[in-house]
């Protein structure tokens, strides 16, 4: 932004006096596509006046893998592994969203045990995803160690996932019609052990990072998204709740067995700053881990016996013609799948409404006026997964 030459002796409104003598030029910096804190290959073009960001523009598409085009070319079930790959930190949730959309067209409901198993594993995956969000947020702010602690507990979760579905990242576990496998013997006990272990570790995260004075100074009152802005820009998930909006699809539009579980919807309260700042978004994620843990416990208690899959859904799926939109609460927000079927074994259209994509669209509008280090904090607090924004 080349400033217009000031007319001598005349201060423009809001102009500092020094600028009359020193003509400065804003510097344009490419943050990314390869940058330590863009969480992937996001490129943010930042214009900065010294340390202060004056404009930002995100450039996407470095990880575009044509997921929606692939959806129109493979069988309904064959698309399932591709859903793992947009939000690879919460692949179970992606499987679930797609499966629910297909089930809506199929007109079937999964047996109770399948539903509980889905809920349980999706909540575990939410904890795993929020652990990464918390760890990498610490990394963005400059604290290394919480990242490793977060991964230590995530590792236990991945072991749990490996035991039930055989994969550690791209699970392809929840399928249209149910889940692929029932839990192996002793698996529920593993989950319980994890709950006990995680309960002990979680306060440490809180003390080590969240209550740290430097962390509070870095995140509180930074990147404030007011309530109205968050709603207007279609933010969902912790982004929206961090701005104080009491909205959670699990409670407000219940799917699976969430209406039978008791949990609190965490909203940002301005715990250390203003409602809707970066601290609040992280705060929501931190406390959501606790809520997810509660839900996991309840699922374990209520887990019924029986089948896990609907017997009518085979490997070749032919849903009825029609279209269905199902939005579920992903760790990052509302993950929507809009599927259109013509009754054949291949979809007409698979549209993925990715939460990170929508949350990220707001980021470039709240960046101007913050400092360069805050830009990193804001991107980190958005908790984007580039696989999801680009699909």
């Amino acid at each position: 932004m080349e400033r217009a030459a000031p007319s001598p002796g005349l201060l423009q409104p809001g102009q500092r006096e020094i600028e009359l003598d020193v003509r400065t030029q804003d510097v344009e910096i490419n943050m990314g596509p390869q940058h330590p804190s863009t969480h992937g290959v996001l490129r943010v073009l930042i214009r900065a006046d010294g340390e202060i960001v004056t404009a930002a523009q995100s450039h996407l598409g470095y990880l575009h893998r044509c997921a929606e085009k692939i959806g129109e070319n493979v069988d309904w079930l064959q698309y399932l592994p591709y859903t793992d790959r947009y939000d690879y930190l919460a692949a179970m949730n992606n499987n679930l969203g797609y499966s629910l959309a297909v089930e809506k067209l199929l007109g079937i409901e999964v047996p109770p045990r399948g539903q509980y198993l889905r809920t349980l594993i999706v909540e575990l995956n939410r904890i795993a995803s929020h652990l990464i969000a918390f760890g990498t947020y610490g990394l963005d702010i400059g604290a290394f160690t919480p990242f490793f602690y977060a991964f230590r507990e995530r590792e236990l979760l991945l072991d749990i996932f490996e035991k039930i579905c055989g994969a550690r990242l791209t699970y392809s576990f929840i399928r249209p019609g149910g889940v692929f496998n029932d839990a192996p013997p002793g698996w529920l006990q593993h989950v319980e052990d994890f709950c006990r272990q995680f309960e002990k570790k979680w306060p440490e995260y809180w003390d080590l990072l969240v209550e740290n004075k430097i962390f509070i100074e870095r995140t509180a009152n930074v990147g404030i998204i007011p309530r109205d802005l968050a709603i207007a820009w279609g933010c969902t998930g912790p982004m929206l709740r961090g701005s104080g909006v009491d909205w959670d699809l699990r409670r407000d539009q219940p799917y699976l067995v969430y209406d039978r579980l008791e949990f609190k919807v965490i909203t940002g309260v301005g715990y250390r700053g203003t409602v809707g700042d970066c601290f609040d978004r992280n705060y929501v994620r931190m406390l959501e881990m606790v809520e997810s843990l509660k839900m996991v416990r309840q699922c374990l208690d209520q887990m019924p016996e029986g089948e896990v899959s609907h017997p009518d859904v085979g490997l070749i799926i032919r849903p009825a013609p029609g279209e269905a939109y199902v939005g579920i609460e992903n760790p990052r927000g509302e993950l929507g799948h809009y599927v259109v079927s013509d009754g054949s074994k291949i979809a007409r259209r698979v549209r993925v409404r990715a939460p990170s994509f929508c949350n990220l669209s707001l980021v470039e509008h709240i960046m101007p006026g913050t400092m360069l280090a805050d830009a990193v904090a804001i991107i980190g607090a958005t908790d984007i997964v580039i696989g999801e924004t680009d699909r």
Partner: protein
Amino acid sequence: MLTDPVTAAAPAPPQGNLWTDLMHGVFPDGMPWWMVAVLGAAVAFAAVMLFVTVIAMFSIWLERKVAGHIQVRLGPMRVGGWHGWAQSVADGVKLLLKEDVVVTGADRLLFKLAPALVLGTALAMFVALPFAPGLQIADVDLGVFFLISISSITTIGVIMAGWGSNNKWSVYGAMREAAQVASYEIPLGLSLMPPVIYYGSLSLRTATDMQAGWLGLHWYVFDPLHFWIAIPSFVLFFVAALAETKRAPFDLAESESELVAGFHTEYSGIRFSFFFLEEYAAMFVMSAVGAALWFGGWNFPGVTQMPEGALRDFLCVVVFTVKSMLLVFVMMWVRWTLPRIRIDQVMTLGYKYLTPLSLILVFAAAVLEYFLALAPSVLP
């Protein structure tokens, strides 16, 4: 022990030593004064360089191990057998063998000069450190002052590196470093004043000698009349020293999550290793100053009372180095605990918190010293 000009200048009798023979042949009347100076400097430089290299390599290894164990992993385990002790050697060899890249569009002079300047100043700081009674390269009267002033020259090297790299991130790193170090000179200097007032001298040697009481445990931080000033002033000094040495949470110049690698983004190979050595050398020097002024320098029960001699000097060096390394360890420990401060908060912390607090301490120390001087009989 290194070079006493008087003894070295005396004509060396030929003793069959190849070197002395040679010197005698060249300078039959004994070595001229400049030769003595140059040789002395060369020996001192070699000693310091060797010491710095060993200390830096050990610190790098230690840093990685500390980081590893804090993060419930192991750190380097492979090279050299026991806990990867040779990892730094391997890294050093790798850095020496790597291609020396000078990026296109760089200011070649600044780019190449910067690492040398940075490392040079780090080495110069070792001149004033009192390792042992007989082992101090120069007992500078203004030792503390000398160290502070020399250490800030590093900044010029960092700015040169940042500017010469032709990289925006590097410029950001350099500018942050400039702002940060310029503002932390003040609290650093001020936080050193309470011990200076206590010792009545700027010489580190004097400071160490004055802490020799109580079988070598009469350290400044343990002084019953002064500990309430000594401990806060040490904390302030430590924070300012972290900022001065660009260590977390003040590592804004190279903050990897924001500026990629800051001022040394474009450096590779041996030039990069210079920056690396400098960082750990500076950490050691700052810790050594802290150890000398607050923690008794080489004084330790059993060592202080020994008769003078090579053994005592050696043990003094060990005590002093261990004390300094413990403080270096604390620096690492802090690094792997805390997040990074933003640049404006660094300024706030420096100007609004550290400076006034250290001024208060200086004032308190001065008042205390004044009243103690009025009533000498109260002194323990």
